[in-house]
């Protein structure tokens, strides 16, 4: 039977022991100050290592180190907000015949992150209320199994973007209803106020009154009965109509303002709350106890229309803002939309179509031409070309055959293949990218800290200014002083909303990182973009960054007599002998040049003898013993250090280097036996990228472990003037540090393996051409394709994003700097103009909408270098 939805334990056990990052929705936030308040409360919670709350995404990310989800939710509630919950309906097989479902409900309620569970035997489903981010679907599956039931369909983590869209839709619907009521009452109140205003005391100085006065005559003809009505009855009717607007449409402002007040923090809700409440209080007293004013010689005017209009306009701003925020997560939606929903798997020898989420590791799935590959895996049969542009941005399909890895959501173009699933669900490359983008979008740029600090101080100052303006108007203003003073107080409070300041940074970061992901640029967060926007020097690694990183053997030179003496005439070909010896040693090395030599030997079908006593000399060469002979393979300096006389090959070494080919010498028993030349083709994109870097005003430096002559030849071809050659990984770090010591901000592009220390040292590290692995974790910005121009795109995007943030902050501040004095009545002595509270609220709403719209322009960002 269906049990009542009782609140279950949010967590039965501590959060899995180790540290976990969890992102969950927070409800009730209305401004940036709310975000910092929740953040403070979360950081003060024991067991929470790090917390960041983003007002733009209305999400909180916490790193848990011992704290349970319950503690986190408690902290959010203590700050005066709540954690967003969601519901999920899971289908359970054979639930119809179950006599007692309470055991199942209880088991599900014990799952971490679940708040309530209600079984519906008729529908064979259980409705689960949970906190998104905390719930691991696998725990839910296990709990159902432990209770003795079987899930009819596996619980894939329900689509987070879809969920967000639904939340957003609900918010938009709610705001729309509240806005409609406020707007109807506001318009009605304005019309009904006309007869009252015609006799009002704040006359032609008020901008709004000036606008409306010409309407007075028309209205007088259209609605003569309104003018005939008793003013006191009109005031009563306006009061009755305004109360629901405050109590329902504007309720959120007052609740938030009060919560903030209790926590000694003031935000835009404080301003709106105090402002409208002051207008309402004044009007109510004027309606029910007009004697208080008339007795003091003041007119008993009412400002009900201002209360409704202010609430309506601010709700309109919120509504537009909410809809715009929904569009900022479009990039994520597009990313997630890339994944196919179904897969054709081989189960018990038969081909069955199942949900992509139901594929498990080890499953064999069939992918036909034109279909998307459902999961990450390894090709087991068939040959094809796969369009990986979604991952790398590169439009040319990549050939794949048995043994090659394929990535989920990429497009199979030409042939049918069978794929063995190696990573599914949350582990796939696409899921990782989505998580990375989600985290980056929610991250805070350092510039945000400044905006937050200012906003925190700003609101109390505005309240102080408003009170001061009230006093000044009351003391030295025109008569009736109390009326003018009240109008000014309300206007200042209403116009000075710091909302635009709160939105300036997060919206730009969100749109910028989202657009970057579409262009193959994965920024790890706002701080990465901020750092990348301000660099002076671009340090490029040669191998894998400027060049393809796939060197190939181009020349083999032989000192024949040595080979003859050693191999006794077999194999007959001296070149093959040199390659064979070198490959036998290098087979044990991990250097890219070693791989090229081994590859060349394999191409010629050479059988490699066994090498013993292998030693790698990092970045220089390797030694081993083959058939009793000491064989050394490496650079000329390495062999000279070993005491080998490389004299016979000196000219050949120089000749190869001048052609940008890397010479590798082979010595047997201390005598030079041969010389292998390797060339690493320069990337087609490198020349354009270097030109673009220079056009951006950057100093470009190439670092490489290769010898000077090769480095200079490569640098010359792509147009780099500054070269640091012969660098070991530590040397690259030293180059970066030296540039930094000279006061320069350094970006480094590398392929992420041997460059990792330098990438970490640089102000911004960009890992190139690595879509999935550790490099994404290590660098600040991951470039999904190997194309060097994506590094240009990354810098351009960073600059555009920061420019947008600066524009937003400038606008938000400038607007207040201009708006507050006008609202305080500074123009009145000069031009006789006073701002009405209604105009003030319209201006405020516009400033927020402007900021969000300006951020959305980033969606149109296009890289300048065409790929």
């Amino acid at each position, binding site marked *: 039977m269906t049990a009542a939805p009782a609140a279950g334990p949010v967590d039965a056990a501590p959060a899995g022991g180790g540290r976990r990052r969890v992102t969950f929705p927070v409800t009730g936030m209305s401004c940036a100050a709310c975000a910092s*308040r929740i*953040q*403070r*409360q979360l*950081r*003060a919670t*024991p067991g929470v*290592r790090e917390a960041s709350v983003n007002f733009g995404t209305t999400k909180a990310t916490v790193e848990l180190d011992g704290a349970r989800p319950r503690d986190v939710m408690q902290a959010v509630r203590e700050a005066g907000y709540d954690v967003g919950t969601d519901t999920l309906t899971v289908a359970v097989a054979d639930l119809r015949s179950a006599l007692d479902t309470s055991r199942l409900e209880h088991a599900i309620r014990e799952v971490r992150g679940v708040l309530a569970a209600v079984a519906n035997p008729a529908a064979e489903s259980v409705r689960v209320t949970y906190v998104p981010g905390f719930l691991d679907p696998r725990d839910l599956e296990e709990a159902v199994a432990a209770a003795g039931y079987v899930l009819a369909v596996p619980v894939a983590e329900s689509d987070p973007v879809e969920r967000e869209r639904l939340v957003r839709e609900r918010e938009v619907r709610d705001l729309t209803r509240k806005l409609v009521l406020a707007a109807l009452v506001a318009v009605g109140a304005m019309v009904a106020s006309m007869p009252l205003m015609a006799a009002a005391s704040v006359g032609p100085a008020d901008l709004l009154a000036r606008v409306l006065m010409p309407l007075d005559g028309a209205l007088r003809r259209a609605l003569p009965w309104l003018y005939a009505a008793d003013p006191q009855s009109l005031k009563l009717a306006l009061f009755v109509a305004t109360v629901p607007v405050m109590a329902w449409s504007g309720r959120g402002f007052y609740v938030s303002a009060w919560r903030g007040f209790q*926590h*000694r*923090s*003031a935000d835009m809700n404080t301003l709106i709350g105090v402002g409208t409440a002051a207008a309402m209080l004044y009007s109510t007293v004027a309606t029910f106890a007009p004697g208080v004013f008339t007795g003091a010689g003041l007119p008993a005017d009412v400002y009900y229309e201002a209360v409704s209009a202010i609430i309506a306009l601010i709700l309109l701003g919120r509504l537009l803002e909410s809809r715009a925020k929904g569009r900022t997560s479009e990039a994520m939606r597009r990313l997630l939309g890339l994944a196919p929903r179904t897969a054709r798997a081989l189960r018990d020898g038969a081909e069955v179509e199942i949900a992509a989420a139901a594929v498990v590791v080890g499953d064999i799935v069939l992918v036909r031409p034109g279909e998307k590959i459902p999961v990450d895996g390894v090709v087991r049969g068939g040959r094809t070309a796969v369009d990986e542009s979604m991952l790398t941005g590169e439009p040319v399909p990549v050939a794949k055959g048995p043994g090659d890895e394929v990535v989920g959501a990429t497009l199979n173009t030409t042939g049918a293949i069978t794929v063995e699933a190696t990573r599914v669900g949350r582990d796939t490359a696409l899921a990782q990218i989505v998580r990375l983008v989600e985290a980056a979008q929610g991250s805070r740029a350092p510039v945000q800290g400044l905006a937050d600090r200012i906003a925190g*101080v700003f*609101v*109390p*100052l505005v*309240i*102080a200014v408003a*009170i*001061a303006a*009230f*006093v000044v108007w*009351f*003391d030295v203003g025109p008569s009736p002083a109390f009326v003018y003073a009240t109008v000014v107080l309300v206007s200042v409070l209403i116009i000075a909303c710091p909302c635009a300041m709160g939105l300036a940074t997060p919206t730009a970061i969100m749109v910028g990182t989202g657009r970057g992901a579409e262009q193959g640029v994965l920024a790890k967060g706002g701080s990465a973009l901020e750092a990348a926007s301000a660099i002076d020097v671009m340090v490029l690694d040669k191998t894998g960054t400027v060049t393809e990183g796939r060197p190939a053997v181009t020349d083999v030179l032989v000192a024949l007599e040595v080979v003859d003496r050693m191999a006794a005439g077999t194999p007959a070909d001296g070149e093959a002998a040199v390659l064979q010896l070198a490959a036998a040693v290098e087979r044990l090395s991990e250097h890219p040049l070693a791989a090229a030599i081994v590859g060349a030997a394999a191409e010629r079908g050479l059988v490699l003898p066994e090498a013993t006593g292998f030693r790698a000399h990092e970045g220089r060469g390797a030694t081993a013993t083959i058939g009793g002979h000491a064989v050394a393979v490496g650079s000329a300096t390495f062999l000279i250090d070993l005491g080998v006389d490389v004299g016979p090959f000196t000219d050949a070494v120089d000749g190869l280097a001048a052609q940008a080919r890397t010479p590798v010498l082979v010595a047997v028993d201390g005598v030079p036996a041969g010389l292998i030349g390797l060339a690493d083709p320069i990337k087609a994109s490198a020349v354009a990228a270097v030109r673009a870097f220079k056009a951006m005003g950057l100093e470009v430096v190439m670092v490489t472990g290769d010898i000077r002559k090769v480095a200079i030849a490569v640098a010359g071809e792509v147009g780099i003037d500054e070269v640091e050659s012969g660098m070991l990984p530590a040397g690259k770090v030293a180059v970066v540090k030296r540039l930094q010591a000279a006061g320069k901000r350094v970006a480094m592009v590398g392929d992420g393996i041997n460059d990792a220390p330098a990438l970490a040292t640089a102000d911004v590290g960009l890992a190139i051409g690595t879509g999935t692995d550790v490099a994404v974790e290590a660098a600040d910005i991951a470039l999904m394709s190997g194309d060097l121009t994506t590094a240009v795109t990354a810098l351009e995007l960073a600059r555009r994003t920061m420019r947008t943030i600066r524009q937003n902050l400038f606008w938000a501040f400038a607007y207040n700097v201009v708006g507050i004095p006008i609202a305080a009545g500074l123009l009145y002595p000069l031009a006789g103009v006073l701002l009405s509270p209604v105009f003030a609220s319209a201006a405020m709403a516009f400033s927020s909408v402007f900021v969000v719209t300006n951020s959305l322009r980033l969606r149109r960002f296009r890289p300048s270098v065409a790929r």
Partner: protein
Amino acid sequence: MTISKAVVTVAGLVAVAWVLWYFLATPRPARSRGERP
């Protein structure tokens, strides 16, 4: 009227001082300042 002006001025100044003190000057309790225990 002069008396009421004086009253409003004094009350206003007190209110300004109180607002600034309440929101800015008072040190927040350590718990809510974000320092980790």
